[in-house]
C-alpha cells in the first residue's frame, strides 16, 4: 500500500506541472481574447478635443502633438495587425479641436479614411473642416482634389479643387500642372499615376507605402 502511495506521490509533481501548464495556456488564451477586445475599444473613451482643450490650460498645441503621435501609433499598430482604423477619424478630430492650424492631421486622417477605410466622404468632410479653419492653405485644397480624383473619380470636382489650390499663396509649381491636366481631362490612369507619385514625395512613410502599393496596382492594370 505504502509503495502504491509512494508511486502516486512521485507522480504528483508531474501532474501539478501539467495542471499549471494547462492553466497557464488557458489564462494566456483568456488574456489574449480580453486584450484583443480591449484593442478594439482602445480609443473609444478618448475624451473630446474641446474637453482636452479646456484641461490643457494653455498648452493646447503640445496636447495636439501628443494626440497626433498617439494617432500615428494607433494607425501603425493596426496596419500591422487587423487593418481596422475605426478610431482614426476621432483622433484626428481631437487634434483639429486642439490645434486647428495643424495641417498634417487633416491630410493624413482624410487619406486613411478615404484610401484605407474606403470612406472618401468622411475624408472629404475632415478636409473641409481644415479648409474652413485654414482657408488659405493650398495643401488642403490639393488633397481634396486628390481624393476626388483618385477615390471618387469626380474629375470636375477634382479640377475645381486643384484650381483653388493653384490660386492660393505658397503653392508649388506642380499644383498648377495638375489643375491644367485635370481640366484637360487627361487620361484617368496617367493622371492617377502622377498624383500617386506626388504622394511619394511627402515625408509621411505610411502614405508613401500606400502610394507604392497603388502605383504597383496601376502598373499591373496597365500591363493587362
Amino acid at each position, binding site marked *: 500500500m505504502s509503495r502504491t502511495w509512494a508511486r502516486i506521490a512521485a507522480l504528483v509533481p508531474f501532474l501539478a506541472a501539467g495542471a499549471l501548464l494547462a492553466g497557464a495556456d488557458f489564462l494566456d488564451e483568456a488574456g489574449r481574447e480580453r486584450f484583443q477586445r480591449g484593442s478594439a475599444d482602445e480609443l473609444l473613451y478618448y475624451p473630446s478635443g474641446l474637453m482636452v482643450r479646456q484641461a490643457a*490650460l494653455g498648452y493646447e498645441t503640445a496636447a495636439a502633438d501628443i494626440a497626433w503621435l498617439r494617432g500615428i501609433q494607433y494607425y501603425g499598430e493596426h496596419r500591422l495587425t487587423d487593418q481596422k482604423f475605426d478610431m482614426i477619424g476621432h483622433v484626428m478630430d481631437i487634434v483639429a479641436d486642439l*490645434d486647428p*492650424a495643424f495641417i498634417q492631421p487633416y491630410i493624413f486622417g482624410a487619406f486613411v479614411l478615404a484610401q484605407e477605410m474606403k470612406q472618401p466622404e468622411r475624408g472629404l468632410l475632415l478636409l473641409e473642416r481644415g479648409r474652413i479653419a485654414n482657408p488659405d492653405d493650398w495643401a488642403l485644397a490639393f488633397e481634396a482634389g486628390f481624393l476626388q480624383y483618385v477615390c471618387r473619380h469626380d474629375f470636375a470636382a477634382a479640377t475645381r479643387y486643384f484650381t483653388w489650390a493653384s490660386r492660393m499663396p505658397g503653392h508649388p509649381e506642380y499644383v498648377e500642372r495638375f489643375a491644367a491636366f485635370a481640366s484637360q481631362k487627361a487620361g484617368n490612369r496617367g493622371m492617377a499615376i502622377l498624383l500617386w507619385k506626388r504622394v511619394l514625395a511627402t515625408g509621411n512613410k505610411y502614405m508613401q507605402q500606400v502610394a507604392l502599393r497603388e502605383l504597383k496596382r496601376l502598373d499591373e492594370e496597365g500591363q493587362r
Partner: protein
Amino acid sequence: MIRVLAVARNTVREVLRERIVLVLAIFGAALVVASQILSPLALGEGKKVVTDFGLAGSSLLATLLAVFLGSSLLHKELDRRTIYAVMAKPIRRAEFLVGKFLGLWTTTGFLLAGMTLMVLAQLTVVHHETPWILLGSLLLTLMELGIVIAFVILFSSFTTPGLTAFFTIGVIVTGNFADQILYFGGQGESPMVAVLTGAFYWALPHLSTFNVRGMVTHGIAVPPERMAFAVTYALLYMGAVLTVAGAIFERRDFR
C-alpha cells in the same frame, strides 16, 4: 530704487543658491532626447513637435519654479528672523516686497530665456532653421510669469508657503478658464450671478492673452499691437497686485 535693487540682488543670490541652474541642464538634455525619440515618430512634423514641447516645457518649468521657490521666499525671512535686520534699515516694507518680486522675476526670467534659446539652438542644429519669432512668445511668457510671481508675493505676504503655492496654482487655473466663467455665469437666470461672475472675470488675470505659442509654432509673428496690449496689461496688473500685497504686508505683525 537703490534699496529695491539691493533686495532684488540678494533675492537672485538666494534663489541661485537653490541650484536652479540644474533645471537648465536637465531641460537641455530632455529636449535633445525627446527630439531624437519623437521626431522620427511624428511623420515629418518633428520640427513642430520639438517647438511645441520646448515652448510648453520651458513655460511650465519656469512657472512651477516661480511658484514653489517664491512661496517660501518671504516665509524663510520670517522664519530665520532675518527680516528684523532688513526692517531695521531705512527701507519700507513695500519696497522690500518689490525687491523680492524683481529678484525672483529676474532669475526665473533668465531661466525661461535660457530654455527658449536652447529650443532655438536645437531647431537651428537639427532642422537648419532659426525661427526668431519664438522670441515674441518668450516676451509674452515673461509677462505671464511676472503676473504669476506678483500673485506669489501677494499670497506669501499673509499666508503659509503651502497655501501660497495652492492659491497661486488656483489663480493660474482660473486665469485660463476666465472666458468660461463669464460664459457660464451669463447662462444662468440670476442677474446677481451674472454680475458676480462678470466682476470675477475682470478681476482674474486673462492669461490666454499671453499664450502665442501656437501662433509662433505655425510661423506667424505676434502682431505688434497684441504685443503692446499684452505688455501694458501685464505691467498694470502686476502693479495692482503688488500694491495690494504691499498694503497687506505693511500691516502684518511679524511676531
